[in-house]
């Protein structure tokens, strides 16, 4: 009898502890300065919304705000799943209807990582859309996250939210320059882009929702390291244009300076600034009234390769 009582106490402690720890972790996430936490607690009002994966993080926000004179908000994330990008954007547009432009980096179609999708269980309580995406794509995870509230925080997104607990993530960027050995051997590396139809449809849903909300949407392909071979790039651009009916601004080979990259796929701080300048030159983004002339042409050099 006494043993049975201890067993019952164990299950009560286990369950109650799970809920209590879950609640504590959730309150930490809710108070974080991480982008999604700010967004869901109505502190993410901006003129330009940036959507993308790690390549979307190339659009360096502080410089973009300085160059355009507009407030920006990024919902980009490393290997952002396209399903989540779509529903987060929809949530954003519902919460902040006054946004002027949605800027989407389209490699989100190719590079999203389904494994990361379940990481957004952390924000499930804030978004019915995230909840339903997780339920439809990973039912086991959805049940586990409802069964154990602690399990909702078993992911990278939660760790990021903790890292940015008291620190804004607007300057989430790398200043690192690609290593000499990698740059020298660029010819030995390549990547082949896949164009999954499911992800293309996600992007179509995203652009359709922007149109429905009367928010202009701009599709952009960010830069790659000079001479880095990206196979199927044209297929990706063409398919996205067909599906969404929007022009894709292809900046894939627009920067020749190797020092503007942290690796083959990602621009660094220098590359990010150049990228913003290019988008202003092409009138994708407005120019700040405080700046009197257009930014200069990007440098045509490739120190790392030569």
């Amino acid at each position, binding site marked *: 009898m006494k043993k049975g009582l201890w067993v019952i106490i*164990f299950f009560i402690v286990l369950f109650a502890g799970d809920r209590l720890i879950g609640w504590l972790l959730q309150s930490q996430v809710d108070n974080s300065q991480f982008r999604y936490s700010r967004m869901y607690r109505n502190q993410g009002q901006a003129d330009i919304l940036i959507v993308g994966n790690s390549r979307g993080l190339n659009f360096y926000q502080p410089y973009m705000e300085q160059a355009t004179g507009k407030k920006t908000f990024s919902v980009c994330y490393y290997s952002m799943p396209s399903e989540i990008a779509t529903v987060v954007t929809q949530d954003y547009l519902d919460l902040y209807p006054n946004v002027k432009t949605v800027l989407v980096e389209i490699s989100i179609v190719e590079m999203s990582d389904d494994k990361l999708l379940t990481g957004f269980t952390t924000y499930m309580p804030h978004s019915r859309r995230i909840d339903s995406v997780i339920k439809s794509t990973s039912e086991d995870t959805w049940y586990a996250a409802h069964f154990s509230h602690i399990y909702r925080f078993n992911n990278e997104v939660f760790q990021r939210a903790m890292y940015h607990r008291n620190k804004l993530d607007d300057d989430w960027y790398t200043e*690192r320059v690609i*290593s000499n050995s990698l740059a020298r051997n660029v010819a030995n590396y390549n990547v082949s882009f896949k164009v999954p139809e499911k992800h293309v449809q996600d992007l179509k849903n995203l652009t359709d929702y922007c149109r429905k909300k009367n928010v202009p949407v701009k599709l952009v392909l960010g830069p790659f390291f000079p001479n880095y071979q990206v196979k199927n790039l044209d297929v990706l651009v063409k398919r996205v244009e067909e599906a969404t009916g929007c022009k894709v601004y292809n900046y894939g080979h627009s920067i020749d300076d190797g020092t503007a990259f942290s690796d083959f796929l990602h621009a660094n701080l220098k590359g990010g600034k150049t990228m913003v300048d290019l988008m202003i030159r092409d009138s994708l983004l407005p120019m700040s009234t405080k700046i009197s002339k257009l930014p200069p042409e990007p440098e045509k050099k490739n120190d790392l390769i030569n």
Partner: protein
Amino acid sequence: MVFNSITFLIFSGIFFPVYFLLKGQWRMWWILVASYVFYGWWDVRFLCLIIISTFMDFNFGKLIGRTENRAQRKTYLILSMIMNLGFLACFKYFNFFIDSFVNMMHAFGLQPSVTTLQIMLPIGISFYTFQSLSYTIDIYRREIPVEKNLLKFAAFIALFPQLVAGPIVRARDLLPQMNTDKPFDWNNLNSGLGRILWGLFKKVAIADSLAPFVDQCWADPSKFSSSHLLIGVIFYSFQIYCDFSGYSDIAIGLARIMGYRFVENFKTPYFSQSFSEFWTRWHISLSSWLRDYLYIPLGGNRHGKWSTYKNNMTTMLLGGLWHGANLAFVFWGFLHGVYLIVQRFTTPVWRKFVQLTRMPAFINSAICMLIVYILTTVAWIYFRSGSLGAKSFSVANLIIGKIISLEDFTWDSTFNKYQIVKGFILLIALLTIEITNKYYAWNNRQLYHPALRITLFSGLLWMIALFGTFSSNAFIYFQF
């Protein structure tokens, strides 16, 4: 069927209640049937091998025990060894020997046409072969009596907790325990559950969380900086420890619930201060097997120093080969052989240095632990590369070369910082628990303090929920 799966949870839910309801022969039948189901879950065909091995060794044991004629006893033992090692040679090493032969021929400019058979490696063959082999050797040495009950012997060989990845439980330890029916015992249940949860935490939360980072490093080391690779190598040293010792903990815990005591397989090996100590703390059931059935019969340290070196090296080389059919595993064994031999020269010199400098004991211990850890980890690089086939040495050398070059040795140059931070948080938790366990013996203490038990069990389950990776990754040692 792996321990960290829902299938196994259901399997246990059926196995244990029935196990305690049955008595005598019925219980042995239940163990045997359940163990065969557990093993056959991977591939039913594998069962043939284990059944043949069981039947043959049972009869060889009887034949050895029946006769007093020394020559006959030896003949039966040799036949048993040929059969057991023959299975291993056929299923595990055939392709390796053929490939090595072809490579050697290529070196001499010859191009032999050899078709290698694509033989599937039965899971856990190295474990149960050694277990079965020790039975006939012990009978030959008259160290244990002959087992007359085939059912009990078959249940001993197939006992599911230890069947696929050890510990290698010897007949002398387990068969006597199977003579009596073990009644259900709350202390066994609590102690067993404690070990199972701790093993699951090590496997699911630590080893499987470190695995993706490690796999990435070995997949293409040329892509990563020296700092990234160094972290990958450190992570691997703990991944393999947590994976393997986690399995052993679960196996020991399951056996304890059944009422059996298995030998300990790991005793915080990375706290070893010498390589000889390391081998009394790492995979103890294998190292003691090799000591008793290989090193000592070869002469051990009884015939002078050169003979001792030779015996050390032979044992470690075969220990390496036991792990897999690849020269990288043999090289891993060779490195440990070298470490053991070199240690015999350096230990007296180091002791004198410690005395002369009056080095405090804790600094001496810390330096020794660090050296043993670093050199063990260097050997792990080759061990991890062993599964990469022909590329194994080039990958291992590339990793070591890049780390030594210190090229781009910065925090910024590392990828997946999330995994790195999570990995180190888990390693700190592991070391904290292991160090405090030396003084508090948590799993024993919880038996007498229900509140502590509830706290520990709940804490481990919460940690597993927060950090666990639930993709049912197989244990590394299944491949051996």
